[in-house]
């Protein structure tokens, strides 16, 4: 639990640091961005990834015990520079589908977790010297899922649903490994204002089914609905395609009506970026300027 609290502090400090740096970057980037008068292409950078790793689940509606096991996910990211100011503004769509199987400490009981999430975000970016890019912004999205414990009778499942407004921040750096262009990035998303579902402490879903919907929607903030998603990734640009390898750390937690939920996962990420990142160009186009959103 202490780790989770530390995480809250760490993530807030991170966001704060980004805010301060972005202020300085704002002053710098205005001189970095050029104003070329040629047709501009704004390609969509798509990333499709598979994720494998470990997960732990505590949901006291189902059990007071911490369940541990494995998680698998498929995720997609679509990113594009915005036409109205492509050097500064980029738009993201994020989607993921996650599955986890976890068992209790005695290995006598298991839980299944299935969730899906979608986010739309808008980020301001600053291109700094040394091929460093910084971005910060916000996103809106939802996360829906269910934790199922087949051993339980009248409380076999815990449904999850939240609508989130999130703060986002990212930092990336372009470099080369030999002759291979690489973009190293770290991206944090921190849901900050949410509306989420939770039954009351001992409320059955049967009672909700009967029509008692009072008090099952809650307003969330870091104090009762703390979530964070951090993706550390390296994108290797082979030209016609690029590959992503990375590590994702994800926490979704809530504490409301004396019910405690903590879902933590660490996952290895491997993905593909069709059409590459545009870094490995044989020669630059004389007539078209391409502005990529990812760097």
């Amino acid at each position, binding site marked *: *639990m*202490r780790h*989770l*609290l530390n995480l*809250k*502090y760490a993530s*807030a*400090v991170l*966001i*704060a*640091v980004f*805010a*301060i740096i*972005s*202020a*300085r970057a*704002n*002053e710098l980037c205005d001189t970095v961005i050029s104003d070329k008068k040629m047709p501009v292409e704004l390609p969509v950078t798509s990333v499709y990834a598979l994720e494998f790793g470990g997960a732990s689940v*505590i949901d*006291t509606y189902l*059990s*007071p*015990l*911490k369940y541990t096991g494995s998680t698998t996910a498929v995720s997609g990211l679509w990113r594009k520079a915005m036409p109205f100011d492509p050097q500064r503004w980029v738009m993201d769509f994020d989607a993921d589908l996650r599955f986890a199987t976890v068992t*209790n*400490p*005695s*290995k*006598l*009981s298991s839980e299944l977790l299935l969730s899906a999430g979608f986010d739309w975000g808008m980020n301001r970016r600053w291109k700094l010297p040394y091929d460093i890019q910084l971005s910060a912004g916000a996103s809106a999205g939802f996360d829906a899922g269910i934790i199922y414990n087949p*051993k*339980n*009778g*009248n*409380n076999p499942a815990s449904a999850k649903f939240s609508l989130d407004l999130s703060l986002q921040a990212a930092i990336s750096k372009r470099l080369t490994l030999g002759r291979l262009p690489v973009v190293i990035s770290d991206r944090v998303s921190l849901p900050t204002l949410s509306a989420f579902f939770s039954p*009351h*402490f*001992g*409320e*059955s879903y*049967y*009672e909700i089914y*009967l*029509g*008692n919907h009072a008090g099952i929607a809650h307003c969330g903030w*870091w*104090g*009762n609905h*703390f979530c964070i998603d951090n993706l550390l990734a390296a994108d290797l640009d082979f030209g016609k395609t690029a590959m992503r390898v990375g590590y994702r750390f994800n926490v979704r*937690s809530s*504490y409301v*009506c*004396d019910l*405690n939920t*903590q879902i933590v996962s660490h996952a290895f990420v491997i993905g593909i970026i069709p059409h590459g990142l545009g870094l490995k160009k044989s020669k630059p186009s004389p007539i078209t300027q391409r502005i990529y959103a990812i760097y």
Partner: protein
Amino acid sequence: MPFTKHLHIAIILLLSLFGVACHKVESFENDYYGNFDALWTMVDEHYCFFEQKDVDWNEIRSRYRDRINPDMTVNEFFDLLSDMLAELKDGHVNLSSRFNTFYYREWWSNYPQDFSMRTLEQYYLDFDYRTTNGIIYKVLNGDIGYIYYPSFSYHVSDTSLDYILAWFKNCKGLIIDVRDNGGGNLTNIDKFVARFIREKTLGGYIRHKTGKGHGDFSEPYPFYYEPASDSFVHWDKQIAVLCNRSTFSAANDFVSVMKSLPQVTVIGACTGGGGGMPFTYEIPIGWSLRLSASPISNALDESIEDGIEPTEGFALHAWSDQLANGVDAILDRAIMFLREAD
């Protein structure tokens, strides 16, 4: 945006952290004391009948915790926890391990059984009856429809009910026998009741725990039954519901709502109760704990945890010696009543 404005946002962000609460999940060691405390705490926070049953759970804790001996066997420890749970006198409370499951049985074992399946099949059904989805049904003596429903765990389909009630179309009355029915799925109650009502009917009230305190309950929430649409077969004539002490849980709820209908007479012995919807939890050793968590009351908002009495003037037993001789006094009384009521 000027740098100072960004700085202000950053400071506000940092200050907001002071409002972030720490939400500790209580953890217990996987030893005898840890498992005892985990079980005691689970019951303390979630069990819903402490006040109604006037149980001093703190006193029980100290009495049983003192009996823990680190050298005791796992079986002895299981028995110790079982003995403590038996203090709740609740048929919905179970402790399940891989080698044993604790049940509190005195809610029915201290009472006459009032039912014999063998007697029913041999002397009343002549081993010749129709059955669908676990439901046994037959026309008795040419004019009384009889349904034996052994468990609410058996799914009841609308189609099956249509066939059954159509089979009884020339009968004067209907007997629904839920003796020895230990409960099951509450949604099966809806299927039955919908055939016996013509308008939306109050079934009872449900509450839930809103917190860990023994008296932390929500306001009672009324629940209603809707009549089946006219395309389904309805039954508007007299009904006798037969019950015994082993009529429990969802079957107890069924008797509760049926008793509130004007054309229904409940005949037999007081039901076994089980008016708390059970939830399942577990303790670190991996044993499952089931306990009453969400109380359900009848349409007058009276507790049904201790059972439901038959309709006044219709309380009787089917004694075992009579049953052995082929006489089911409760069923006989129901047949006689329905014929007289015609």
